[in-house]
């Protein structure tokens, strides 16, 4: 049996897929990984170091940190994936339309995307969430407001290249309608760089959302989001280091998996980039 091409990239690629499958399982059925309630308070077991009963130790309320990390997979990852999915979808459609529009409309619309790209992401999200209300949803909205523009520009560039190709000319000569050409001929042929970017962007989104939680405008307690857990763990860092360590480690491993997978997806979908990026 032949492995799917993404998996034929050596141990790193296989490892990253395994990690992501594990995370997907944690999001789907957290109870399969821990029998404990992530919000069960036990003041007798406050700030206990890692042990057999509590593999990651316990927090300031005696809650089991392993259970909280497992249950934290869902809010942490769902927010990042959704954010990128929305930004990529809106940006791709916008880019498709921009690329298909005439030259003057194109120039004008590119200025619009430039405006959105000019926001420094963390600063903007910080201001947005402070004013509109703290929480992961508002942070994700703030990031999506600026993020779609990157996809719009990527997609436009693709459209400009692809629409000069023969198969589009053929479709046009066959009398296909404009919208059919856009949707069924142009779009599928422009998607692979979008897919690569989206995979890598999920890792960026996880980091940004976690950083915003750390700054106090992201996930709010008692939600077991990884960034928020590191933030509270910071208060106990010097004497109870495991508290901040494990949720942060979870973020690191997840982000690493998305980055490695993104590189692998790039190699598979866009072999030319290997020449520049990899030996």
């Amino acid at each position: 049996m032949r492995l799917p091409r993404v998996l034929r990239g050596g141990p790193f690629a296989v490892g990253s897929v395994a990690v992501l499958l594990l995370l997907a399982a944690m999001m789907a059925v957290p109870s399969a990984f821990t029998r404990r309630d992530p919000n069960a308070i036990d003041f007798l077991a406050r700030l206990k170091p890692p042990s057999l009963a509590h593999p990651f130790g316990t927090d300031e309320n005696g809650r089991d940190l392993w259970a909280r990390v497992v249950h934290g997979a869902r809010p942490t990852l769902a927010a990042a994936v959704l954010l990128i999915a929305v930004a990529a979808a809106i940006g791709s459609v916008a880019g498709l339309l921009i690329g298909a529009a005439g030259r003057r409309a194109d120039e004008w619309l590119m200025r619009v995307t430039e405006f959105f790209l000019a926001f420094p992401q963390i600063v903007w999200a910080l201001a947005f969430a402070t004013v509109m209300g703290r929480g992961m949803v508002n942070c994700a909205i703030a990031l999506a407001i600026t993020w779609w523009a990157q996809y719009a520009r990527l997609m436009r560039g693709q459209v400009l290249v692809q629409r000069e190709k023969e198969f589009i000319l053929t479709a046009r000569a066959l009398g296909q309608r404009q919208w059919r050409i856009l949707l069924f001929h142009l779009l599928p042929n422009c998607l692979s760089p979008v897919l690569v970017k989206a995979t890598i962007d999920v890792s960026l989104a996880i980091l940004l959302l976690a950083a915003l939680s750390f700054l106090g405008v992201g996930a709010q307690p008692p939600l077991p989001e990884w960034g928020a857990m590191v933030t509270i763990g910071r208060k106990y860092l010097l004497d109870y280091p495991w508290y901040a360590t494990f949720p942060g480690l979870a973020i690191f491993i997840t982000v690493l998996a998305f980055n490695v997978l993104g590189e692998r997806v790039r190699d598979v979908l866009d072999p030319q980039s290997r020449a520049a990026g990899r030996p």
Partner: protein
Amino acid sequence: MLLVLRRLPLLVALLAAISAAVFALTQYLPGDPAFVAAGGGDATPEMVAAARARLGLDRPLWVRYLYYMRNVAGGDFGNSIVNRRPVIDDLKKFWPASMELALAAIAISALVGIPLGVVSAAWGGRWPDRLITPASVFLGSMPVFWLGLMAVFVFYRQLDLLPAGGRLTVGLTPPPVATGMLVVDAAIAGEWRVFADALRHLILPSVILSVISLAMITRVTRAALLDVLHEDYLRTARAKGLGEARILLKHALRNASVPILTIVGLQLGQLIGGVVVTETIFSWPGLGLYAVTAVENQDYPALLAFTLITTAVYVTINMAVDLLYPLLSPQTRH
């Protein structure tokens, strides 16, 4: 020069649009400033209306925006809600600390990242490359705030080598202000004990802040060098009998300089977000910590000013990078 003049209106338009967007956000703020200004709880509707007129809050949004921008142009960002001082005074007080941190971080990431990228490309596919390239992916995947906390635990709590935060040990007198950057000021004043102390405080924050840019700069340098390594002019240089090191550093690196300098410039802009996070970890009294404190206290004039200024800096840096292209590479001049 012509290019600068052509891009300048765009810069102004961008800043105007972004400041308008951020200013418009403040309309969604909870609470009514007129009610507060009229004395809060006991204020009658007439008193609130009078306060609203006095503060100009009865004017349309765009009029207030123009007033605000006129004040900003004159250096007036309003007063902080918390300490009642002009925001501009606080900004002046805090920005040198951020500047010191950001400059140190970009220097570290360029001085370490570019050589690492060169080594990685020169030994492409062999062990130095197989070590450096995965390491850069590793580093680039680190949540900076977590890495910072881990560094504090190891270097402060366990090894007791470096301070956990702040810019200077309590009790030491800061050097006379010249630039506001303590390390520089101490060196200028010749106060070497203060210099060493300030430097010790700077190490952890600047190294942590440099991590992400370091990873990016390494990877871009490597890719840019690999792109030119097979060019004919390098074969020519080799045929002339030049040494490998000379070929690599003089001929190849110069031709790969455009993407490398671009990424260094862009990373400088990216550092702004990182500065906010790093300053929070290390209690570094700069603009980032100021902004996070403003968020905690709902100090909107301070937050608005911080957002406007950092956005302006970010946009200006990115545009400056754009303008550098033609200077570096004659091919892109047209």
